[in-house]
């Protein structure tokens, strides 16, 4: 019954590489997360590509780039095709992360690592689960059950419990957070009782962040000072994970009348902000108990923001007057609105940039964090600009040719779909555009453009809303004016926001991408305030001590971080393994298990005594290799589970009662780990005086002493007296004695 378990890290475990690991349990291979770094470095995926064909299932933990960034690439470009398991919020928010990532890149450069279709096709493979929903795998994973458990950190964040045949339980828990936060509960360790293998990361093993209160104060004062000084605050934050925590917190801050923040603007800027907030609103059941209670009690949705305004483009934000706080993605300042705002604002000393996470080495945010002194930066500025003049003509000519070629091809094959990827073909010509025909022609409006415009399925038609007041339909004097001349229809402009047009411009108008280097003098203040929301080093030690995993695999983390941790748990765990890039570690253990059926006569002869959370009894039995198969309709438990495996399963031996005189003698076993303080409580309840002195518990006026010698060894001392025997009786009561 020994299972072969191997863990291999595919992106390199040392340091700060993204999460992407391979777990093999017997035949079945899991890809644990499919993370990628901020800049889509293909080197990281070299090893992953090698294993693509072997992977049976992908388990995702968090919705961010570092945990599922490579998913579209693996599905779209590497031919991965297997089931992916994730919780509902990881599915939704993960999609948002990737859409935002794609759009941010696409706005400024020709991005072709993956397309939006790749994202969609990868996400179509995701099986959406709830916390504690067990899934029994089929095929090569027969006998394996996976269960997502709450991990904190981000909404829907997961620790995966993988159980083999109900015995070997593996816990994959990277980047979890044990602390309760504003919008999330801490990780759920209740459902984990001593895993046989725990796979976690050591990234934070020596990290001690500031206290939450202190951190919040720092954020608050930084924001206030900057705003009062007339500057802007840029908060670089992710798309849909930690952003929710910060957005919720800031909105609450703004609501507080005494904070004096009401006068300033608070903005959330990313490509999918509307959708992210809508999804967040409908996922209250995944959030903290406190938020849920307040929703049940007062029906106020925590993500119904009062002050935080949602934006989807830079120009919208720039139009806000006065000092403002902008939460923009991405946290690494490598791309997206955060980078654009940074380049705009960093040269003014009034402004302030707040970084919220330690991103990978080489990213701009990390650079700013480590080199605080450095004041001049040479940055690559990327832009997408409209084509003009000769370039435009050239482009149009090529487009036309392509179209003709296509038309020619189509003529030959009418059946083939004509809706292919020429979505960016410009139909709009110069001059007045009355209707946005491109929408009808191109592919459907992608989700992430928040558009208040109606969509017209066939041809433009503006429905007129009939408005009423107390006196009936509103009278429009214009309608009653005597028509003197043909009124020229006014261009319908009311709803077409300029911002929308700009967005349209970027995606529909022929454009090209520019990249050039510019030197910036960073005058703005740059502060790193930790909003990562992950377990700190000290707590990691404590949690591991509490869980006491039998084997421990430590991922991510440099030698100096991992080694002390490994040394500390060398005694607690049977094995501590530190996988290095490309080398699988073997976490197999010898485990012997078989099942026996217990005869009723045997069970009724047992005397159970109560242990910690289970009942225990001493059992003496003799194995009988039963051949008498009972009629299966009486055995209720062999139901569906058995239906599949019944044939394969050999007969379970039966354990019969061993006659008392034949039973071998056994020494008495005391089960429980008694804490003297608990015992003192028990004594107090019975009205027996006792006190601690020098680690010894003195009872009954010091006539009886209890001492804890070592792990699981208690000494009771006293002179011959009734008290001695009474205390002893009580002490025995604390144990399950078999």
């Amino acid at each position, binding site marked *: 019954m020994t299972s072969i378990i191997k863990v291999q890290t595919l992106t390199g475990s040392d340091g700060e590489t993204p999460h992407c690991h391979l777990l093999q349990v017997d035949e079945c291979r899991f890809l644990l997360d499919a993370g990628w770094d901020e800049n889509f470095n293909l080197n990281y995926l070299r090893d992953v590509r090698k294993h693509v064909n072997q992977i049976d299932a992908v388990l995702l933990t968090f919705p961010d780039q570092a945990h599922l960034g490579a998913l579209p690439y693996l599905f779209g470009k590497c031919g991965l095709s297997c089931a992916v398991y994730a919780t509902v919020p990881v599915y939704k928010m993960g999609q948002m992360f990737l859409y935002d990532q794609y759009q941010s890149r696409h706005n400024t450069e020709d991005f072709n690592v993956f397309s939006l279709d790749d994202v969609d096709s990868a996400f179509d493979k995701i099986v959406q689960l709830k916390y504690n929903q067990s899934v029994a795998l089929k095929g090569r994973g027969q006998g394996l059950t996976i269960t997502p458990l709450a991990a904190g950190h981000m909404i829907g964040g997961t620790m995966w419990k993988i159980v083999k045949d109900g015995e070997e339980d593996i816990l994959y828990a990277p980047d979890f957070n044990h602390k309760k936060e504003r919008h999330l509960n801490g990780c759920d360790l209740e459902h984990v009782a001593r895993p046989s293998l725990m796979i976690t990361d050591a990234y934070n093993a020596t990290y001690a962040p500031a206290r939450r209160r202190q951190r919040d104060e720092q954020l608050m004062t930084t924001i206030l000072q900057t705003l009062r000084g007339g500057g802007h605050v840029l908060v670089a934050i992710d798309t849909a994970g930690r952003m929710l925590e910060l957005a919720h917190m800031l909105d609450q801050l703004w609501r507080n009348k005494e904070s004096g923040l009401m006068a300033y603007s608070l903005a959330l800027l990313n490509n999918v902000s509307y959708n992210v907030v809508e999804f967040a609103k409908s996922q209250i059941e995944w959030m903290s108990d406190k938020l849920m209670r307040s929703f049940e009690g007062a029906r106020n949705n925590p993500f119904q923001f009062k002050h935080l305004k949602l934006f989807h483009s830079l120009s919208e934000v720039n139009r806000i007057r006065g000092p403002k706080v902008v939460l923009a993605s991405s946290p690494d300042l490598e791309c997206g609105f955060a980078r654009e705002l940074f380049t705009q604002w960093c040269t003014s000393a009034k402004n302030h940039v707040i970084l919220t996470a330690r991103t990978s080495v080489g990213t701009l945010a990390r650079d700013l964090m480590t080199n605080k002194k450095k004041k001049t930066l040479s940055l690559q500025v990327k832009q997408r600009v409209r084509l003009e003049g000769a370039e435009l003509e050239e482009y149009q000519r090529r487009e036309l040719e392509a179209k003709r070629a296509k038309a020619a091809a189509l003529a030959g094959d009418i059946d083939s779909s004509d809706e292919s990827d020429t979505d960016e073909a410009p139909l709009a010509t110069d001059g007045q555009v009355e209707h946005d025909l491109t929408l009808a022609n191109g592919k459907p409006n992608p989700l992430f453009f928040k558009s208040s415009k109606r969509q017209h399925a066939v041809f433009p038609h503006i429905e007129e809303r009939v408005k009423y007041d107390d006196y009936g339909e509103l009278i429009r004097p214009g309608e009653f004016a005597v028509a003197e001349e043909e009124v020229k229809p006014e261009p319908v402009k009311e709803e077409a926001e300029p911002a929308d047009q700009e967005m349209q411009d970027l995606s529909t108008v022929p454009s090209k991408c520019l990249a050039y280097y510019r030197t910036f003098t960073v005058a703005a203040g740059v502060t790193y305030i930790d909003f990562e929301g992950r377990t700190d080093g000290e707590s990691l030690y404590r949690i591991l001590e509490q869980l006491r995993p039998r084997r421990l695999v430590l991922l991510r983390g440099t030698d100096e971080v991992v080694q002390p941790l490994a040394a500390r748990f060398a005694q607690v765990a049977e094995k501590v393994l530190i996988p290095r890039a490309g080398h699988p570690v073997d976490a197999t253990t010898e485990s012997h298990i078989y099942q026996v059926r217990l005869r009723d006569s045997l*069970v009724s002869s047992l005397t159970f005594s109560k242990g910690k959370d289970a009942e225990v009894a001493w059992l003496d*039995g003799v194995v009988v290799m039963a051949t008498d198969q009972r009629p299966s309709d009486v055995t209720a438990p062999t139901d569906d589970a058995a239906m599949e495996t019944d044939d394969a399963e050999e007969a379970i031996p039966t354990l019969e009662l061993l006659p008392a005189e034949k039973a071998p003698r056994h020494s008495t076993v005391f089960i429980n780990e008694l804490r003297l303080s608990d015992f003192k409580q028990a004594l107090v309840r019975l009205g027996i005086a006792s006190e601690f002195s020098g680690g010894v518990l003195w009872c009954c006026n010091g006539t009886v002493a209890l001492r804890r*010698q070592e792990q699981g060894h208690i000494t009771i001392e006293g002179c011959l007296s009734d008290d001695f025997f009474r205390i002893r009786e009580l002490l025995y009561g604390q144990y399950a004695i078999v």
Partner: protein
Amino acid sequence: MASAAEELDQLMIRPLGAGQEVGRSCIMLEFKGKKIMLDCGIHPGLSGMDALPFVDMINAEEIDLLLVSHFHLDHCGSLPWFLQKTTFKGRCFMTHATKAIYRWLLADYIKVSNIATEQMLYTEADLEATMDKIETINFHEEKDVRGVKFWAYHAGHVLGAAMFMIEMAGVKILYTGDFSRQEDRHLMVAEMPTVHPDVLIIESTYGTHVHEKREDRENRFTGVVHDIVSRGGRCLIPVFALGRAQELQLILDEYWMGHPELHDIPIYYASSLAKKCMAVYQTYVNAMNERIRRQIAVNNPFVFKHIQNLKGIDHFDDVGPCVIMASPGMMQSGLSRELFESWCTDPKNGVIVAGYCVEGTLAKHLLSEPDEVNTMSGQKLPLKMSVDYISFSAHTDYAQTSDFIRQLKPPHIVLVHGEQNVMSRLKDALLREYADDPSRGPVQIHNPRNTVAVSLPFRGEKVAKVMGGLAVEPPADGRVLSGVLVKRNFNYHLLSPDELGKYTDMTQSQVSQRLSVHFSGSPQLLQYILSSLSADFETTKGKYQWRLFRAVTVTLDGKTAILEWVASPGGDMLADAVLAAVLKAETTRVDAPTRPAKFDRMHYKECLIETLQEMFGDEAVPKFFKGEKFHVTCGGRRADIDLTDMSVTCEEDEVFRSAVLTAVTKLYQSLSPATLSRND
């Protein structure tokens, strides 16, 4: 501490409400000492304590778990009373949406019933206090409460409605609550569980009735509404505030959208409760069907464009055609009744009864097409307005029920939540259907009355997992297994005691004891007495310290004797014996031991001969013998005794032999110091 109840193989299902009736759903499950209550509703037709389920049949304290299927009053109406006013100590679960709506629905119920009855079952404060006691469960999430595993499936019916699958000791029970397998505009259909339950507890509200198709009934509904308003009439739709009302709103809003000519006809919805709960509907879209979930990405379908909320009748200007949805759904009283009475005399107006109506209410009365109706004030009014009945009730019908059962193949079915006649018709119909189906296997259908228990036998089989050191060798016939059996939540594991810490979070410990006794006698005497107590007697040189039975150490330190041993039942007993010996030594005033501390073999022989003479007569035993062998003769039979190995042989008579042997060994044991076999 295995109680007798735990070993019983009977699963008891006892409806305390909703047994051959509709209303106050409350079903008790008992199996293996676990008690589970399903729903805790109130009877809408009764008031005060009479409306409660028969909870005096049970001891609330013993209930481990209470599951609430959905927010309708007949399923959760007595919950605040039960949680606050009884000794219930177990845990209570419902889905997130149910909990959010429960709070507002019951607050509304309290307000309404406040006027009606003095004997209030609970107050708003009680309701508020229950919110902390109710835990939430997500659909498909598995929970485990004291070994009872359960999870929820979507049930259709209303937002947040759940079917619970409960697993106890391997037996699975599915409780459907109210469910519907017909998809409507916002709710998903009841899911088909992937595991087969052993017992199915199913609602039977509509019995053998078959619903009309959704499209037909929607068309009929919108057609009737359209007719009424276009002839210039007012259309009254009495509805229950939550549940079906939202469905009707979605239909009407969509219909209005497609018919611009109706835009000047207002639709009102008069329910402050529904307004309060709209936020819940707008939030828990994940519990709704695919259509709504897709739509939410674009805009929220529960933000209606053509439906206005009406705060009360005072805010309503009755000036022309309109559509108004008002509660209560059966027009017992309240706004819907008021509107009905003021409109019923005009043939242009119309009323549409859209839900299930209970006997004795005005809505039910209307369906018999009377010429006159009584007003609340007692007058008679001619009924001229049109009356239509279009059932939008999201309960399963016969087609859905029988299909559901055919797919699940449960061996036992328990019918609840249905009028007596309807229920027995359903039972007969189902039995007829399955009687013709030999592939199906035997099926038992029960329709218990309130408080009558159905008892189903389940032979729970106990399978233990042998782990660790004990399992190194594969099982073979006749192999003896000894170890600690750990029982947790119906799971059994057999382990060797040293590996307890490895596989469980229990640890093995040791208790050692040290008992001091005042001793003023002489050490020699003590040594002598101790040495005659135990054959396993070791002395530590240079000290007054002895170890007896290889278990108890006695140390003499000045005037104190200290006994040390490791606790165990046997050890404690030996320690008691040693303690008695020490006390004896204390009280015996002999200056020095007179006899050697060794076992006197000659003395034993003398005694043995005396004993045998007593038993068989003086002649039977030789007066004198040498060495270790002699014989006893009695009645012509001779038994040879060999004292070297304490054996007795007698060919002729076994009874005689054993009598002699007993004498030999018993006498030896009583004279020699005790020895213990050492596997203890």
